[in-house]
């Protein structure tokens, strides 16, 4: 790809994200539609989580149920860094947890994201190395177990109020207003969708390179993959670590959006939510998984008007979808022009089919 095209593309993404950011927050960044922001941020985080889980579950065909553990590691490591390091590293940030301007938040958010991502990647390596020798259900169970262990460990860390909720730190100060350092509110739409774009880009680049084929070969047939010179263990661990890294970043972004961090956010069901996005989107299909992440985040919101039936309708929709499209809403292919054309012809064929008269 020529350089101008690449930088053109990057500039375009930045421009669009800035526009989105500006549309929502306006210049003052104080008064804005809280509900809209909330849904959009959750969509962005869901994309990051689903696309990175897809690298493990979709590309390499290993079944991890434990990614919520990496999300948690990222969240708490990130929050601990910004809160404890506040006075030394980020003195420019407000201590009351009020929203931070986009450019003021740039360096701190880079730091906490990297810290959260790297910590999660390291844990991912430790978890992955022994577990990835198991397959299928066994791997699912052992990753679930690890996520549970991480939850229990964090709950017992007093420094981040793991047992209750982490809102910041009391500090020794005469001044009443400075007696508490809140976890800074760094995350805004721009950062979440910037990371989402990055994760999608990385996933696409991998998927359509020979490296990506090595991941897929592991899913397709491990014995054949080894015979073709692919170190399957290495690629499985690589996928796991990469996926944990991005999941950890999502955790750090989440932590700096919430005013308090509670272990309730990292229950096992959240893992399932993301697995559902990946399966519904079509295991392995990056575009499908991205769309499913957005749909499944918005769907419960869209069902709000029928609030009392929501908990029935939502699972019912999932069941119907799985029964009618077991390969995922969009199948395992990428959503592309050729794909759309194929779908349209098959729908057209469906309508033009005449019932047989006997």
């Amino acid at each position, binding site marked *: 790809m020529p350089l101008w095209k690449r930088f053109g593309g990057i500039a375009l993404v930045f421009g669009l994200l800035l526009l989105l950011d500006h549309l929502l927050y306006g210049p003052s960044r104080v008064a804005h539609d809280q509900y809209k922001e909330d849904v959009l941020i959750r969509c962005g985080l869901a994309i990051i989580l689903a696309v990175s889980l897809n690298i493990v579950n979709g590309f390499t065909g290993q079944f991890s149920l434990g990614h919520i553990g990496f999300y948690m590691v990222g969240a708490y490591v990130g929050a601990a860094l910004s809160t404890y390091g506040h006075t030394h590293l980020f003195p420019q940030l407000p201590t009351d947890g009020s929203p931070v301007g986009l450019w003021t938040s740039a360096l701190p958010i880079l730091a906490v994201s990297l810290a959260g991502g790297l910590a999660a990647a390291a844990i991912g390596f430790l978890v992955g190395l022994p577990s990835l020798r198991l397959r299928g259900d066994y791997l699912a169970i052992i990753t679930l177990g690890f996520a549970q262990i991480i939850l229990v460990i964090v709950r017992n860390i007093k420094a981040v109020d793991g047992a209750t909720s982490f809102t910041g730190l009391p500090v020794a100060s005469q001044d009443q207003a400075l007696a508490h350092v809140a976890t800074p509110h760094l995350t805004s739409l721009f950062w979440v969708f910037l990371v989402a774009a990055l994760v999608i880009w990385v996933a696409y680049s991998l998927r359509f390179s*020979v*490296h990506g*084929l090595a991941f*897929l070969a592991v899913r*397709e*047939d491990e014995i054949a993959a*080894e*015979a*073709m*010179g692919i170190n399957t263990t290495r690629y499985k661990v690589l996928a796991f670590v990469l996926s944990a890294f991005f999941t950890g970043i999502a955790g750090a972004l989440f932590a700096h959006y919430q005013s308090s961090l509670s272990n309730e956010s990292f229950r096992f069901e959240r893992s399932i939510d993301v697995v559902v996005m990946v399966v519904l989107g079509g295991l392995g299909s990056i575009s499908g998984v991205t769309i499913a992440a957005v749909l499944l985040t918005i769907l419960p919101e869209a069902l709000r008007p029928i609030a009392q039936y929501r908990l029935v309708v939502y699972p019912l929709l999932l069941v119907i979808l799985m029964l009618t499209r077991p390969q995922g809403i969009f199948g395992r292919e990428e959503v592309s022009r050729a794909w759309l054309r194929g779908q349209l012809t098959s729908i057209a064929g469906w309508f033009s089919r005449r019932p047989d008269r006997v």
Partner: protein
Amino acid sequence: MPLLEVKDCTKQFGGLTAVNQFTLSLESGEMVGLIGPNGAGKTTAFNLLTGVYAPTSGTIQFCGSSIAGHKPYQIAAAGISRTFQNIRLFPALTVLDNVRTATHLHYQPSLLSAIWRGKSFTLAENAARDEAMALLERFGLGKYYGDTAKSLAYGEQRRLEIARALATRPKLLLLDEPAAGMNPQEKNDLMEQIRTLRDEFGVTILLIEHDMKVVMGICERILVLDYGQVIAQGTPREIREDPKVIEAYLGEVDAGSSVS
């Protein structure tokens, strides 16, 4: 120095000795057949050579260094590639991607450069694609490049496996019953394609095949395995007349014709 030197290789599965004191020496450029009745241990011998199993005892030297007990991917990197008796393609990947995957061994770009997508990356990707496409054309599969591997007909899947194995640029190619399940016409075509492989790709070939006529037609040297042991080896003519071979096949069909 022989390309491959196997000495007294034995593989036991519990009480069953699948391969017993297997000894084989291959010179570079040879085309050798490995035959034997069902369950004789032919596939197990391949599995030992490619690291699927480690031998219970014995040594395997390839290009002068020991590969016994190495991992399959290391052995592939050393230059041994194979096909499988019960086809093992990457079923959901396209025909082209099946072969592209196997170019992995001599694919240079790092993971990071795959993300950055610089010039050297594009060049390497194009080279891999061209090489894979050329191999597909070579086996008459070019027109199916965008189809999934599982959608191919049986005979085409077998040819795709050979194309994929060659994409690793092997020194030694192990073919496990490449013509199994093909009709006589397809079988002849395939054997003709295999015969020319050796010169075209400079590869040494060891071939398992049930159809005696086919093996005798293209191999200069044949090894006969029975109950895990090499009971005879020599030229096709020597093999055909060897009383031990005739005895091993007795009760199946006479040794001159098909024993499949």
